């Protein structure tokens, strides 16, 4: 377990190390800690959950490292880590492509742990920034689980956004996802109702190892066989933001035969509420049921949790590329002197996914700001002394002049903001 403990500690420490300014501008991170109650038979009934997350963002790519550790009686009960890389193309005529790669490991005291590498591609079609659909496909390769082949993963989904962040009832995002998994696995010769099952014609009966036997709940001397399996998950989720409150709820159903889907994974429902006490501190509570994840060797579980989220730079939880063309939502804009002659652009805007600026300093190419708080966005720039023209946009919407600074008409019948950097501001630090 030392290896996992070191990994978790390293990831947590990484959140606390101050980085260079260029790197820090692209880093977001958060840390969750709280009491976690489960009923899966693997973890003790009540554990402490620590979950650091670390993300490095670039304009069209991001790298995420996420971990969770469950502690009980000062012992690490289960550790789970995942590293993800995502490449996203710009949106052209409402179409956006996305490539996702994940490598994950889950370890608990009971088993050897499981590993998985998967690659997935999605094509998104956005409708007027308030809705969209996607189609995706990929391959997942697990190790040290009952699954013995690569798994074909195909998914499709649709989302719609209702309301606006400034509206009385906030904004809600509805998402529906259909995911199909197809793979070969080592399975018991009996299904969950003790009925005998046939093996695949091309797959003979096999002797299973003691670890696998434990997973299959088989007795010594009893054989299992390799079998083609498939199941599909249909899940509907709702994310609702109103004021300082964020509610997330999901419910799903798993389709598949009884030897592919255990009864405890047929249906699931979960809900989480987050109340933001400040830009960087939130209280989280929730509970529900999660289905089993056969590819990762994780069983179904019912859970309840209450905790605290400390977000050095919180990561957006929205799972879909939601966009809202409302630059008017920008509440404030300011520039502050930063280290080494840099200037930090600080923008406050809530309920959006991306904030970009462009101006003469960037040769009028968009630069994406980094989320530093729930509605706080920042970017460090090497602005030279002088007058600079700048525009801002949110969620890929229209370019507009930032609020709170002088403006003028530009040469193309638009409006542009004006920022003056004095030599004193430029060399103040």
């Amino acid at each position: 377990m030392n290896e996992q403990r070191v990994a978790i500690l390293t990831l947590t420490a990484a959140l606390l190390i101050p980085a260079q300014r260029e790197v820090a501008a692209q880093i977001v991170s958060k840390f969750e800690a709280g009491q976690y109650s489960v009923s899966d038979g693997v973890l003790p009934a009540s554990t402490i959950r620590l979950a650091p997350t670390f993300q490095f963002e670039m304009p069209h790519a991001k790298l995420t490292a996420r971990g969770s550790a469950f502690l009980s009686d000062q012992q690490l009960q289960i550790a789970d880590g995942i590293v993800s890389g995502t490449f996203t193309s710009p949106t052209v005529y409402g179409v956006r492509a996305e490539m996702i790669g994940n490598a994950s490991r889950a370890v608990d005291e009971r088993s050897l742990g499981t590993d998985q590498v998967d690659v997935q591609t999605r094509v998104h079609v956005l409708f007027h920034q308030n809705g969209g659909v996607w189609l995706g496909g990929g391959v997942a390769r697990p190790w040290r689980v009952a699954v013995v082949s690569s798994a074909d993963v195909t998914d499709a989904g649709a989302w719609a956004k209702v309301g606006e962040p400034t509206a009385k009832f906030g904004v809600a995002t509805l998402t529906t996802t259909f995911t199909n998994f197809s793979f070969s696995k080592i399975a018991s010769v009996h299904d969950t109702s003790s009925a005998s099952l046939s093996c695949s014609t091309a797959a003979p009966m096999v002797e299973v190892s003691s670890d696998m036997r434990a997973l299959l709940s088989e007795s010594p001397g009893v054989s299992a066989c390799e079998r083609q399996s498939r199941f599909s998950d249909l899940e509907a989720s709702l994310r609702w933001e109103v004021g300082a409150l964020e509610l997330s709820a999901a419910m799903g159903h798993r389709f598949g035969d009884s030897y592919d889907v255990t009864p405890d994974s047929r249906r699931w429902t979960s809900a989480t509420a987050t109340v933001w006490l400040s830009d960087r501190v939130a209280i989280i509570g929730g509970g529900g049921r999660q289905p089993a994840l056969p590819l990762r060797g994780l069983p179904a579980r019912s859970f309840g949790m209450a905790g605290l989220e400390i977000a050095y730079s919180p990561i957006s939880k929205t799972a879909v590329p939601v966009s809202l063309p409302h630059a008017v939502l920008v509440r404030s804009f300011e520039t502050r002197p930063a280290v080494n002659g840099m200037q930090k652009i600080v923008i406050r805007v809530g309920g959006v996914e991306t904030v970009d600026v462009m101006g003469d300093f960037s040769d009028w190419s968009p630069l994406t700001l980094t989320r530093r708080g729930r509605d706080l966005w920042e970017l460090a720039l090497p602005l030279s002394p002088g007058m600079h023209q700048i525009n801002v946009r949110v969620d890929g919407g229209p370019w507009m002049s930032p609020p709170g600074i002088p403006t003028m008409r530009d040469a193309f019948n638009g409006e542009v903001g004006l920022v003056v950097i004095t030599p004193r501001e430029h060399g103040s630090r």
Partner: protein
Amino acid sequence: MRFRRTPFGAPGSRRVSVRAVRAAVLVFGASVTLRTLRAQETEPDRLARLDANTRFTIHVLMDSAEMAGLPSSALRSIALQGISLKADSKTIVAAVRQELANLRTARTTLGPVEPEELTAAAALLHAGAKPGQLEKFRVRQRGRSDLQAFTIWADLITRGVPSEDASSAITKLWDDGADDATFLSLWNNVQSDILRGLNPGAALQARVRETPGRPPTAKGQPPEGQQENTRSE
């Protein structure tokens, strides 16, 4: 003993179609993503997005600016702004020509000032100020910057303050020795008055009257420590 047939049929029937769809999506998505990223990495000059004639015209105008000792980067910036805003070639060329003309006028009016001041003055002329109104700024205290004054001036014109009113107000404060904070304070006050429904020109005049400033210097004479830009194009 009960046997069940696998629900997926013979291997190679439905699985082929699932794999084909998955492979197609994978290849399409990968090619779109990689092509876009590669295009962004290898793009040498965004001016290359313009057609050959427009690009040639822009380069000629930039050369003219450099030969006149004017900052060609300002012209390039205007062209790039036009490209980002997806303006047509004709509009971009017209905007760059106008910027060059404004830079020339600013240089003639202000004398040999720093490039950033020249660019700010050109922007002010674009906003609607008249060249003669900039004459006052030919004389300035050593180390004193008129950038903030120009910025507020341009904004006031944009908000509907008559050019003459904006000019006289800014010039008065400048003569009174107002600093950047004073200009910003004036702008904040006028902006809030306009939002309350006041006439922009009237709001400016009222706020200028209550804005403190240093006593003006003797007319026509630069105050102690000030210098005059004597060279002009």
